[in-house]
């Protein structure tokens, strides 16, 4: 077991691609994407993407070592400022095959 930072992000699906790129470039070791049924925040309600992805969200879960967190947070923040969405960071312990 190893201490890591747990990062979860909710972002508009149209911008998922950009966030994934940023995270990949920031070197997160892995990533899990899940669907969002609905949600709301400052910019109003989001749907489940019935007609198009225009108003739907994605949920991303990733981890990083504590010392990498500032760089990753700095990389994500501008995207959240531009597009809205949410990033939650918490402490966790990791069990992995590596």
């Amino acid at each position, binding site marked *: 077991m190893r201490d890591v930072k747990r990062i979860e992000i909710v972002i*508009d699906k*149209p*911008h998922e691609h950009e966030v994934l790129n940023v995270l990949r470039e920031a070197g997160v070791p892995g990533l899990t994407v899940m669907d969002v049924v609905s949600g709301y925040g400052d*910019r*109003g*309600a989001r*749907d*489940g*993407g*019935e*007609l*198009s*992805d*225009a*108003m739907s969200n994605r949920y991303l879960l990733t981890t990083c070592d504590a010392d990498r967190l500032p760089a990753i947070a700095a990389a994500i923040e501008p995207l959240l400022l*531009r*597009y809205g969405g949410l990033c939650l960071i918490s402490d966790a312990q990791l069990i992995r095959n590596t």
Partner: protein
Amino acid sequence: MDLLLSPPILFFFLGALATLVRSDLEVPKPVARLLSLYLLMAIGLYGGYKLSVGGLTGEALAVMGVSILASFLMPVVTYAVLRLKLGNDDAAAIAAAFGSISAVTFITAVAFLQESGVEYSGYMVASMALMESPAIISGVLLARIAASGGKPDAGGRLAGIGGLDWRELGREALLNGAVIVLVGSMAIGYVTGEKGWAAVSPLMDEPFKGVLCLFLLDMGLIAAKRLGDLKRAGVFLLAFGVVGAVAQGMVGVAVAWLLGLDHGDALLLAILFGSASYIAVPAALRLALPAANPSLYLPLALAVTFPFNIIVGIPMYNAILRAISATPGT
């Protein structure tokens, strides 16, 4: 009255009713996606097949050309009108949605024609496909030019378009899933012609109206859910959703008259001009105009203009076109 009493429209009402009485009825997202994929493929294949039979006549090319032009130019006018009350990005986004088309409205009009036994041409489907994207580009350019204050930029090029990533904009406008399926299916219908259509029509032709019922049930559910968003939209925007749409539709009527189109084609042109996109354009605008508020342009097209068109617009344009063609001397 015929249209109002057709199953697809009644299922739209049923869906809206279910939402309004807070029923737990829902059509799962993947099903909605399947249904709209089906409808786009079906109309695309049929249009392509009809085009392969009818050929690319002069009339076909004229209508298609005018359609592209309209999709590109109508947003300039509507943008100017919308700027009276709205910010730059929101005005441009709504102008783009209304310059583009609603495939489902078109398909509902096609079902209306079929029930009335009126023919229409394959190139009208092509016109629909061609009208999807230009309005997006037009809207983005308007927003850019206006934002730059109209001053030519460093390179001396047209104001605000300097830093524009044309490649990316083209991708967002042209490679949207709905556009790809529609254009691709048309091409496949065109290439495989009579034989191809015979192979796919048991899925793509006969069950078509039944699928439209299912999809409009869901559209009713979804559109009614978006009614709440309209509270923030204000009376000006609500009025635009009807009056602006009708104004564009009447441009379509006029163009159809000038081109001497048959009744079926004329009705479809009016509906293309007068309908607004709530699937392809919003999806593209989230990327191309991220500063515009989707909670304005999407509900307007979906919960105002769409119901208006399928309930009032189609029979109204139908009556107007009948009246015009009955007028002696035309």
